[in-house]
């Protein structure tokens, strides 16, 4: 027996050593405990590993300290070429990034609010600790890094390790003064990632060659090279949204044939790591410093945006205020900035000698137009100077005033000047006009829905206008004289041939009209024959020129637009005007039924701004019974008028 052991002692020693190690490996690779109780190593194994680390780490620390000291002296005191330029570049980059950050700050806050609403527990990087890499595992099979921070520095297992470029790995083992980091390139590592474009989720782990890959992904043609990959937060280790890398290529998984592996180029330079950041604290709120930085960045971004807007507003010709006083250099073609700041000033064309509708500043703003209201007048050469819808209900107010949606009287509007006396020229009778229709019976149902609409239609001065349609008629100047206002406006007033009480917007004369004003606005005074109690827009009484023999007081040239048709609610039926110009046409059937020669005294009564009743086609019961009172058939005859409280005696 003794000879057996002496003879085979070498083999026996080998077997014993191998057996002990196999048992030790078997003990270490037993089924892992639950996560909260899990430890990477058992006590004995941990002790052995700790001894090995303690033996290897001091010389590594010493060598690393020597190396970093030498490099520090070189970098901080000798190699300072181009540092200033680099500093300037970095400052510029910082400013740009601050603006960018301000731009996304609102999105971030919105995301937080939404996540809070959905009770999401988003993890944000709250506190990090820098650490230096002092060693590696030294083998190809294990992608392990040793860092100089350990348990005494607050490091615990499974803390994520990152760099500003991207993730590195997680803490695997912690010793008092050192720790081990398992890189994402290790085959046993795992991180939840998501492809940022295709939103494909997967598990990231390293392959045998040390390249990270998203394993076992369903084949997808959308996965392209260069697609960014970020952490998904599903692993409960890495916060969501940290950069991982970009897609390098897609290969077929040899062990799971239909599935593919997406090879990733790491964002962090894992082969040249020197310093890393350990995320030691994560919270569901953005840290105060980041909040403050976001607020500052947002303020800076807003200031930049405001400045850019101001510069842009200076360059946009449509933003020029027409009421602004003219400066001496307005017609100057010099686009250079007066202060020489290099900011181009807006190019303003010289004033036109003969302004027309193409003259700058005569085009109405888009917001002042109603859908469809601009096309017809533009095509006919009529400027829709006030195509705003009327917001007030039709009324037969004695003042004949109508308000528009915008404050038109505040603006400088063309003057209303009768250009040829009491009657407009024949050419003006068929001009299209921009009209704002309110009330029932508008001949264009598509534009009169809801009782208020804007319509472009021909307006004949002195003829019947469509029932319930407020008309604001404009026309090109019949008589062009170098003068003041470039806008030509013709207003159909309540003096001629209109029959209905519908608010009408008429241009507001704002200045005395000189003879031959290019914007010769026809304003028919309200002392002409008119049968309508039209609620017309009374313009400012500054027009002094009367077209009807000058019998209009210069101080009160009430300009009205008269339309025919049934009265709105509460209104009274008003007969059409007595005088109808031959050849004039109407687009309203009701106005055609009305006796044109029956003069009806103008009676106006105040009507409150009540919702407009849209009187559409009459509703007749199909059973032959008598219609209810609300459906009483309309009579062609004009209804007796209620005496107006304050009849307007302008006829």
């Amino acid at each position: 027996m003794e000879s057996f052991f002496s003879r085979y002692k070498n083999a026996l020693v080998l077997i014993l050593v191998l057996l002990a190690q196999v048992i030790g490996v078997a003990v270490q690779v037993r089924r892992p405990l639950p996560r909260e109780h899990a430890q990477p190593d058992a006590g004995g194994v941990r002790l052995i590993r700790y001894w090995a680390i303690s033996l290897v780490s001091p010389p590594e620390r010493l060598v690393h300290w020597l190396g970093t000291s030498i490099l520090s002296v070189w970098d901080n005191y000798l190699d300072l070429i181009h540092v200033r330029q680099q500093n300037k570049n970095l400052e510029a980059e910082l400013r740009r990034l601050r603006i960018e950050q301000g731009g996304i700050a609102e999105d971030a806050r919105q995301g937080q609010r939404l996540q809070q609403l959905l009770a999401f527990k988003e993890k944000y990087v709250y506190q990090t600790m820098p650490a230096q890499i002092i060693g590696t595992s030294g083998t190809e099979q294990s992608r392990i890094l040793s860092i100089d921070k350990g348990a005494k520095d607050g490091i615990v297992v499974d803390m994520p390790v990152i760099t500003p470029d991207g993730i590195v790995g997680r803490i695997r083992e912690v010793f008092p003064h050192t720790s081990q980091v398992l890189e994402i390139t290790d085959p046993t590592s795992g991180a939840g990632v998501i492809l940022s474009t295709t939103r494909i989720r997967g598990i990231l782990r390293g392959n045998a060659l040390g390249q990270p890959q998203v394993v076992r992904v369903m084949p997808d043609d959308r996965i392209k090279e260069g697609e960014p990959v970020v952490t998904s937060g599903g692993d409960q280790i890495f916060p969501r949204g940290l950069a991982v890398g970009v897609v390098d290529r897609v290969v077929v998984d040899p062990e799971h044939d239909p599935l593919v592996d997406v090879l990733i180029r790491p964002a962090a330079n894992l082969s040249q790591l020197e310093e890393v950041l350990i995320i030691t604290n994560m919270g569901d709120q953005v840290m105060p410093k980041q909040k403050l930085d976001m607020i500052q960045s947002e303020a800076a971004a807003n200031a930049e945006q405001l400045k850019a807007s101001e510069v842009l507003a200076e360059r946009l010709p449509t933003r020029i205020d027409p009421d602004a006083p003219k400066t001496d250099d307005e017609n100057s073609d010099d686009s250079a900035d007066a202060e020489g700041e290099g900011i181009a000033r807006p190019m303003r064309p010289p004033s036109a000698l003969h302004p027309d509708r193409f003259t700058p500043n005569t085009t109405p703003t888009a917001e002042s137009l109603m859908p469809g209201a601009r096309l017809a007048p533009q095509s006919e050469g009529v400027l829709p100077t006030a195509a705003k819808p009327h917001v007030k209900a039709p009324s037969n107010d004695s003042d004949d005033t109508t308000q528009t949606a915008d404050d038109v009287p505040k603006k400088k509007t063309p003057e209303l000047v009768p250009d040829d006396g009491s009657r407009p020229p024949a050419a003006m009778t068929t001009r299209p006009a921009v009209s704002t229709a309110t009330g029932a019976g508008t001949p264009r149902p598509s534009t009169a829905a809801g009782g208020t609409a804007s319509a472009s239609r021909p307006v004949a001065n002195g003829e019947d206008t469509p029932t319930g349609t407020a008309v604001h008629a404009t026309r090109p100047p019949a008589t062009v004289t170098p003068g003041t206002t470039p806008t030509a406006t013709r207003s159909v007033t309540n003096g001629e041939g209109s029959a209905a009480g519908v608010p009408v917007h008429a241009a507001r004369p704002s200045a005395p009209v000189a003879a031959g004003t290019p914007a010769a606005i026809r304003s028919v005074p309200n002392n002409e024959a008119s049968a309508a109690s039209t609620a017309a827009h009374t313009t400012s009484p500054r027009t002094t020129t009367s077209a009807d023999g000058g019998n209009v007081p210069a101080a009160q040239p009430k300009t009205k637009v008269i339309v025919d048709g049934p009265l709105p609610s509460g209104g009274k039926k008003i007969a059409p005007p007595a005088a109808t110009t031959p050849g004039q046409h109407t687009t309203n059937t009701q106005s055609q039924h009305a006796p044109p020669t029956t003069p009806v005294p103008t009676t106006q009564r105040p009507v409150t701004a009540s919702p407009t009743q849209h009187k559409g086609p009459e509703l007749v019961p199909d059973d032959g019974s008598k219609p209810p009172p609300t459906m009483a058939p309309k009579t062609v005859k004009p209804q007796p008028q209620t005496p107006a409280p304050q009849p307007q005696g302008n006829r």
Partner: protein
Amino acid sequence: MSMLGAATRRDTEVQSYPLIVFILVPLLALGLQSFVSLHFPRFDILDLPLLVTIYFAISRRNPMVGTVTGAVIGIAQDALTRQPLGIFGICKSIIGYLAASLGVRIDTENHGTRALLTLAFVFLHSGMYWVLVRRLLAQPYQWSWLHESIRAVINTVVAVILFALLDRVKRREY
């Protein structure tokens, strides 16, 4: 070249090393392997602890010492990795035993013989590691003949130089 030569007849009889060398050389190998790989990632294709194990095994010509030496160096190397302690220990224990057993029977002072032995041991080490990792631990490990061949060649070249340098520190007993 004379430095790399080995006095075969004389050195096969008596070879010993100072204790400090026997301790410091494996530690230095582990430290260099860990530190240099940090700055030169391709350095990890070398396996300095394996080369040191082979050298001490074939120099001492004692299978028992070779086994224990291999086991200690291997476990220390395991401690620096994420794998369980014992994987490299088992591999290097077997390598130490075989190298010491061969060192008794053949002339291991010749550089050609050393090179061939090292080449074979590196392949054997990789094969045993693959078996242990894939079969015992069921962990992913990809075998590439090309990569293993390059690795074996590089380790062999480095081993020839390293063994010659270590020959300078051995203590001869007459």
